[in-house]
């Protein structure tokens, strides 16, 4: 599949190449000048580049350098721990949710004509009820800000008598509630986006609806959605920083403490360094997603990569860098 972008304009001829070169030079000059006059100079005039502020972060000979980095490392470990736990549990529960919703959809079509009337009615009511509940669950947790969900979990659970001890778990639950819904919808739309023939071929062969979902649809949805799932990891990694609201000591909160503890407060410098690390890690992850996407497109071990799979209301988070 060719990129739309490459067919928008023709391969440049000699004149187009010349124009491109001239405009390029102008753009580069403008960017450099802007960076110098609008960013570098004002910062420099305020002494934001002084070693007093940067030393603790970049000068190994600085007396607090190792302490600062030890704390930052602890912060990153806490961030990664929360993110890893959240993504794993989101995957597990999200898969369950997706399978549940797909199965309920199939179940709602059945009439249970083989069973006695009361039993059939009971079963149909149950499956109808479960569909409604799961739909509500999805809409609510998809529509709530993650900060609110986390805060709510951390304050409501103890109030309801559920005490998990470590705040890590409240953060993990809060992140999971949101991300399992997102992942569940990614997988569900992945399964529904597969060519209808896959399900039909399986059913025509005599596989049951659950067997079809488990053996045919889910594995392919996982493969197709792998890039989107990896991108979701980026989202989780970023969202762990919301743990500050329940004072979970992830890297941003630790950064705040470091800034207060240093003799010369240097928030701009600390956040610049932490932000850069975040960007590097997440960029690597999205490159991985891109790579996986390309491998999938080449190997085509799945029936099809649907034209656009992100379900409504999710695309923002899951749109892998590779795809767009």
């Amino acid at each position: 599949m060719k990129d739309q972008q490459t067919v928008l304009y023709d391969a440049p001829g000699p004149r187009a190449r010349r124009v491109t070169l001239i405009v390029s030079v102008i753009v580069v000059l403008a960017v450099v000048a802007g960076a110098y006059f609008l960013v570098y100079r004002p910062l420099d005039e305020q002494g934001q580049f002084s070693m007093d502020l940067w030393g603790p972060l970049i000068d190994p000979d600085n007396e607090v350098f190792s302490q600062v980095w030890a704390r930052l490392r602890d912060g990153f470990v806490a961030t990664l721990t929360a993110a890893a736990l959240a993504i794993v549990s989101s995957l597990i529960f999200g898969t369950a949710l997706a399978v549940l919703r797909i199965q309920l959809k199939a179940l709602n079509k059945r009439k249970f004509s083989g069973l006695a009337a009361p039993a059939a009615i009971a079963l149909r009511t149950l499956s109808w009820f479960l569909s409604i509940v799961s739909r509500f669950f999805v809409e609510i947790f998809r529509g709530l800000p993650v900060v609110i969900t986390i805060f709510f979990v951390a304050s409501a659970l103890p109030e309801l008598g559920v005490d998990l001890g470590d705040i890590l778990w409240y953060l993990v639950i809060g992140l999971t509630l949101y991300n399992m819904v997102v992942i569940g919808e990614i997988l569900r739309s992945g399964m529904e986006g597969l060519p209808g023939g896959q399900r039909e071929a399986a059913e025509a062969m005599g596989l049951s609806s659950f067997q079809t979902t488990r053996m045919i649809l889910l594995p392919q949805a996982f493969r197709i959605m792998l890039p989107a799932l990896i991108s979701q990891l980026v989202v989780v990694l970023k969202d762990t920083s919301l743990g500050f609201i329940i004072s979970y000591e992830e890297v941003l909160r630790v950064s705040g403490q470091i800034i207060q503890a240093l003799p010369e407060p240097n928030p701009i410098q600390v956040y610049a360094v932490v932000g850069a690390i975040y960007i590097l890690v997440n960029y690597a992850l999205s490159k991985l997603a891109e790579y996986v996407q390309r491998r999938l497109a080449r190997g085509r071990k799945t029936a099809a990569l649907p034209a656009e799979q992100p379900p409504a209301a999710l695309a923002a988070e899951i749109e892998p860098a590779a795809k767009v």
Partner: protein
Amino acid sequence: GGDDDSGDAGSTDTGSKTFEAGTTMERLNKAQKIVIGTKFDQPGFGLKGLDGKPAGFDVEIGKIVADELGIPEDKIEYIETPSAVREEKIEKGEADIVVATYTINDKRKERIDFAGPYYVAGQNILVKADDTSITGPDSFKAGDKKVCSVQGSTPAANIEQYLANKGSQLVLFDVYTKCIDALNSGQVNAVTTDNVILLGFIARNEGKFKLAGENFTEEPYGIGLKKGDTAFRTFINDTLEKAYSDGRYEGAWKDTAGKFDDQVPTGPAVNRY
């Protein structure tokens, strides 16, 4: 932290302390372990340092109590108790005591008990050193001065009643350092909260800031503990009084909050309600 000279008087006779059977003091002494709730982000009172350990006046007070219980410093476990969760941590027994710039008031007394107060703070206003236009909370009534505080805090609620228009006068962040940055770069004219916190910032930014006028509230800081544990409360009150007189209180102050305010407070009378 300056803990080296404050605790050694008591730490030699750790095992020799005995307490009446069945009391909290006996339990903690036997266990040789105490969990103290404090703040991790309050300069001068409880701030997690670069070594990862909290330090400050509240922490020192906690150490004095622990010492009196016969528990050495390295057996103290600190947990973070931000404002919203303090009562809960005490009720659940997750913290044996909470020393965390904890203002004594009646609403809180419904859920927990307070020993102390061990310090009486008061809300005040921080302005730039050359600012003469703000002299107290009433200066905000005109509606042109902007003030910063922390989201969900009592000082923020207190200052609101002096404001002509909340939307164009009040700025709230999650921590005070952000308020200081905003004051520095001119987005706000003042920062308000308990005087001790403000003193900390004055000390850290020599000559830049000053307090505008007197404290306009009283914030007696107490030590939170489980409701109904009168024996323990009495013990802590006794401990505080002892510390007032034997210099440990003064030492704790000098090494921590005293760095910002060289005027050593006199220990306030404890309230044995």
